[in-house]
């Protein structure tokens, strides 16, 4: 528990969370404002449309992934991993603490992103005299899905970052994979099984279309990805020489 607290303190004592939070808010303002201003009142009045408006909060899962990468690979980049291992020489415990801490921080970040997105969307919809349906079961399941997905993505980022140990390279490779690599899986009709799509199926939490796995299958596969990344990342932590 002490190590988890220390990892959370690390996240709180730099400006990383602040910048990532601002990035999420900026994206939410941009997307929600565009969506509400560009669509007709009749379209915006549909619950499905309003759900689409606030789904931008799911970007917090991607940001959470980056947070996880920085929390693990960033320690190697800044050279602080030596201090971390001096305090906690059993490295498996450090890896576990990072997984838990970033999963928690990612979930909090995602929840805050949802609260802001819902509030902003409600405000803008009301400003256009559109009846607000953001409290529907479907919309609330989306909140749960986004929070869960962000927690998983954050922990996944820790494992993946521990494995690569190069912060910038790890972020770039992750983004290239999500934007280019994973769509290419579509050639073999395997794209629903890519980690990005699997996380998306958790986000959708029961509202998915045919292109995503069901929530249950997506969650199980996401947890398998997490377990594999966690084990490989922990092994990489264990074997690393801090020179």
């Amino acid at each position, binding site marked *: 528990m002490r190590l988890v*607290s220390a990892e959370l303190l690390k996240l709180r004592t*730099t400006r990383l969370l602040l910048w990532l939070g601002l990035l999420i808010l900026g994206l939410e303002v941009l997307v929600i404002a565009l969506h509400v201003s560009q669509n007709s009142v009749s379209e915006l009045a549909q619950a499905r449309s309003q759900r689409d408006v606030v789904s931008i909060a799911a970007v917090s899962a991607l940001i959470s992934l980056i947070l996880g990468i920085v929390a693990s690979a960033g320690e190697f980049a800044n050279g*602080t991993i030596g201090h971390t291992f*001096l305090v906690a020489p059993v490295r498996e415990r450090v890896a576990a603490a990072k997984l838990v801490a970033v999963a928690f921080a990612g979930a909090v970040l995602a929840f805050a992103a949802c609260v802001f997105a819902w509030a902003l969307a409600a405000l803008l919809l009301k400003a256009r005299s559109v009846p607000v349906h953001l409290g529907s079961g479907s919309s609330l399941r989306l909140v749960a899905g986004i929070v869960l997905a962000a927690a998983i993505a954050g922990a996944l980022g820790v494992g993946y970052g521990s494995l690569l140990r190069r912060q910038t390279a790890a972020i770039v490779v992750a983004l290239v994979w999500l934007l280019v690599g994973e769509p290419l899986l579509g050639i073999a009709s395997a794209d629903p099984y890519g980690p990005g799509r699997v996380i998306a199926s958790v986000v959708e939490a029961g509202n998915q279309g045919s292109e995503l796995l069901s929530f249950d299958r997506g969650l199980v596969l996401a947890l398998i990805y997490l377990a594999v990344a966690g084990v490989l990342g922990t092994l990489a932590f264990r*074997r690393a*020489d*801090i020179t």
Partner: protein
Amino acid sequence: MPEAPPLEVRGLTKRFGSTTAVDELSFAIEPGRITGFLGPNGAGKTTTLRMLLGLVHPSAGQALVRGVPYRKLDDPVRTVGAVLEASSFHPARSGRNHLRVVATAAGIPRERVDATLELVELSDTARRRVRTYSLGMRQRLSVAAALLGDPQLLVLDEPANGLDPEGIRWLRNFLRSFAGGGGTVFISSHVLGEIAQLADEVVIIHKARLVAHEPLAALTARTAGGTIVRSPDANRLREQLAAGGIEATSGEDGELRVAAPPERVGEAAAAAGIVLHELRAESASLEEAFLELTGGDE
């Protein structure tokens, strides 16, 4: 059962690919003493220290702290304080927050953070981000982190790097006081003058291997190997020594520098009935001893 030494390495070896950074190193340091760890650049000092601290995995042999590998210490922060490179801080985190992270992970009360900052004279700048610190301030922060758990053993890797003269004096006084209170210090440095002023004994490695481990005084005397002798009858003594095949060169005030141990000089003088006013082993400086042992590599 005798107590395990504070630090001990046995047949310690580290290979990075085809390069052997540390080669079958064995030594143990005594408690309550300051031991200097010397060697030319690239000799393997930092790798050895990092193996002792569990940061680098040995290829062979053992690195033990109080008889166990660092990884198996019950409470590492309260057992050993380590000063690593001064750059190993998150630049955007304040000095105080860095210590808070360490204290939180180790279960050390927060009040100790402020007390330690006070001890290293960083209280005024503790809330500034580390990126604004000078190298000397970072070194003090490293020392503060090492002292957080109030350990009885300090391992320091080049702690004087970047310190100004006042900082070096502060560090010297602090380490003396720490050792005076029964603490054990193992300090690597390339500043031989600092080690000469601080250390009780030295461990010297060269090209990854141990070349000396002994008290500083014994090392400097052994390395010089000669004798200083002063006599009112210096000329006759020199002739007496020459007759025995021992070379001596004259100095001022009847002083001779003799290329032989004090025992032989004393025996030669006694045999000739020559009065001596002084007879002592000649000491080399640590630098001279170091250069002799390492073949002049620095």
